[in-house]
C-alpha cells in the first residue's frame, strides 16, 4: 500500500498527492492487481445549476409582469384621457426596472460590468424621464455628472477593497465607505454649485469631508499602527494600552 512519507498515513493506489499535506506520493503498482472502484463520482456542482434554474424562473415571471404592466399602461393611455406625461414616466420606469432586475439577478457575471450596466441603465432612465416633455433640461447638467461621479467612486471603493480584502475587512470597509461618502458629497456640492451659480464655494460638504476623512484616517492608521513614539505618548497620557 502506498504511504505519504510526511504524514505516515496509508492512501489508495493511484493517488498522486497526499490528501492531507499534498506531498507527492510515489507511484507504487498494485501487487494484487485489484480493480479500482472509484468511491466518489466526479462531483458536479449542484449550486450553480440550481440557482440558475431558480433565477430563470424569477426573471421569467417578472418579465411577464413587466410586459403586462407596459401593456396596461399603453391601454390606459389609449382608452382614458390620462395625462400623457404620467403614462410615459411609468412606462420608462417599468422598462428600466426590467433592466435593473436583469442585472441584480446576476446574469452579468463580472461585478465591474454589472456596476457599469447599472450606471448605463440609470443614464438612459434619467435621459428618458428628462426627455418626456420633448426637451432635455437637466440630464447633461445634473444627472450625467452625478452618475459618472458615483460610478467613479464605486470603482475606487471596489479597487481599494479588493486590494485589502484579505487583510482586515472590519477596518477597511468602514474606512473606504467614509472616504467614498466624503468624496461623493464634495463632488455633489461642486456640481450643484457650478450649475446654480457657475462658481464653486464648498460649505456643508467640507464639514462632511473633514469629519469622515478624519475617522477613516484614524481607523486605517490604527490598523497600520502608529509610530512607537506616538503610541508611547498616548499610553502615557491616557493610561491605556490600545495597541
Amino acid at each position, binding site marked *: *500500500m502506498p504511504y*505519504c512519507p510526511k*504524514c*505516515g*498515513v*496509508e*492512501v*489508495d493506489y493511484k493517488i498522486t498527492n*497526499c*490528501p*492531507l*499535506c*499534498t506531498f507527492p506520493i510515489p507511484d507504487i503498482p498494485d501487487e494484487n492487481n485489484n480493480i479500482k*472502484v*472509484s*468511491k*466518489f*463520482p*466526479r*462531483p*458536479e*456542482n*449542484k*449550486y*450553480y445549476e*440550481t*440557482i440558475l434554474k431558480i433565477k430563470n424562473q424569477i426573471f421569467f415571471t417578472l418579465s411577464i409582469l413587466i410586459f403586462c404592466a407596459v401593456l396596461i399602461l399603453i391601454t390606459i393611455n389609449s382608452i382614458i384621457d390620462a395625462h400623457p406625461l404620467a403614462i410615459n414616466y411609468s412606462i420608462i420606469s417599468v422598462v428600466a426596472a426590467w433592466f435593473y432586475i436583469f442585472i441584480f439577478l446576476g446574469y452579468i457575471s463580472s461585478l465591474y460590468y454589472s456596476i457599469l450596466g447599472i450606471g448605463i441603465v440609470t443614464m438612459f432612465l434619467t435621459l428618458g424621464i428628462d426627455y418626456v416633455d420633448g426637451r432635455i433640461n437637466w440630464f447633461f447638467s445634473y444627472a450625467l455628472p452625478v452618475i459618472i461621479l458615483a460610478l467613479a467612486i464605486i470603482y475606487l471603493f471596489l479597487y481599494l477593497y479588493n486590494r485589502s480584502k484579505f487583510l482586515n475587512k472590519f477596518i477597511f470597509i468602514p474606512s473606504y465607505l467614509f472616504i467614498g461618502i466624503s468624496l461623493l458629497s464634495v463632488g455633489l456640492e461642486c456640481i450643484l454649485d457650478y450649475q446654480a451659480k457657475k462658481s464653486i464655494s464648498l460649505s456643508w460638504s467640507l464639514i462632511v469631508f473633514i469629519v469622515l476623512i478624519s475617522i477613516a484616517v484614524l481607523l486605517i492608521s490604527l490598523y497600520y499602527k502608529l509610530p512607537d513614539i506616538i503610541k508611547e505618548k498616548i499610553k502615557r497620557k491616557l493610561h491605556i494600552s490600545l495597541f
Partner: protein
Amino acid sequence: MKQKKEWYRLDNAGKLYPSITSTRVSTVFRLSATLYNNIDSKVLQIALNNIIEYFPYFKVNLKRGLFWYYFEHTEKYPKVQKETYYPCMFMFYKNKNSFPFRVLYYNNRISVEFSHSITDGVGAINFLKSLLVEYFNLLGINTDSHKIPSKEEAEDAFKKYYVKNVPNPPKLKKAFHFPFKLNSKGEYYIITGIIPMDILLSTAKKYNASLTQFLLALYFDTIQDFIKSNNFKLLPVVINLPVNLRSIYPSNTMRNFFISVTPQIDFRLGTYSFEEIVNYIRNYMQLTLNKKYINQHIHHNVKREKSIFIRLIPLFLKNLMMPTIYSKYGERNYTTGISNLGLITLPKSIEDLVERIEFYPPPSIGNIIKVGTIGYKDNIYISFGSLTKTTTIEKIFFRKIRKMNIPVKIETNRE
C-alpha cells in the same frame, strides 16, 4: 369521502432546521454502506418502496403552516437517484412533493441523506439497516423480517421527557472559529480516516478514556496545536458533542432526540498536556451526562418552543429571524462539532456482504469543519466534513494518531 391525510408536528430540535436551511447550511447528513458488489438500482427502488411503509413518519412532505412547518403524509414514493453531486448537498424539501431525505447509489455504495428536521443519526441508521436488509432479501438472501412501527417511534420525546420548573443552563460565550477561507458554494469536502478499532480502543484505554472521550481529547489537542503555532487571538475552544438521549431516557423515537453538550477549554490559561485534556473531558462527561443536567437543556429548548410569544410569530418572520438567532446562540458559541454514532451492527446474514459504513456530518457555515465518526466491524471511520480547501486541522489530527503508532488510511472526495 376523501381520506384525511395524517400530519406530524416537527419535533423540538427539528423545528429549527427548515428555517435555517440554505444552500450552504444544508442541515443534511449522510450515512452510506459500501457493499462488495455493484448496486442494482431497480432492486434498490423496490426495497425502498417496501420499507418506506415501515417508516410512515419519513413518508412525508414538509408543509408551511401559519406559525410552524409541519409534515404531511404523502401517498407518493421517493425515488432512488444516482449520486452525481458532492455529499450532503442542500435539498429543496420545502418544495411540493419533495421528501426530506434522499437515497443515492454509486457503484457499490448506497447512501441515505437525511435532513436533520426529520431525524437524527439513530433514525437514519435504522432506516439504512432496514433498506439493506430488504435489498438483500430481494436479492434472495434471507435476513430478518421488519418489525411493525409503533406509535412511540413517531413521538416527540423532547416533550415527553420535559420537566417543568428547572433553571436554564448557563449561557455560552463566543468561541474560537477556524479562520479558513470558504470554498465555492455547492462543494463539500470529506476526508475519512480509517483506523483499526482494537488498536484505537487499547490506546484509549491506556489513557483511561472511552473512545468518544479519546477522540474528543485528540481533537482539542489538534486545535490547541493549530492555535498555538499560528499565534491566533485566543478565545475558548468549544466542541459541540451531540448526545443520543435514547441511552438516558427509555425512548424508541425515530425522530430527533439528542442534546449537545459543549466541553470547552480556554487555552488562554496555558498549554494543556494530552493527559490533562483527557482528564478534563472524562470529568466533564461525568458531570454532564446525567438526567439532571440534560433536563436543564431539554427544559430550556421546550420552554422556548412553548412560549406564546414565539408561537405567535408568523412563520415567514421566524424564517427571517432564525438564521441570525441560531448563529448568535448556536454555532457562534462552538468552534466545531464531533458526532459519534457508535458501533453499528448488521444482521449476521448480511454482515459479510457489507464492507463498510460511513457517516458524514452536515455542512455548516458557522462551523466550517465538523467531524462524524462511526464504527463498523473492525474499523472506525472518522470523517471530516469541510467547507474549506485548507486541510491543516485534518493533517494535524491524523498525524497525531500516527504518532501514537496507530495505522490510518486516508480517503477523500477532493480532486
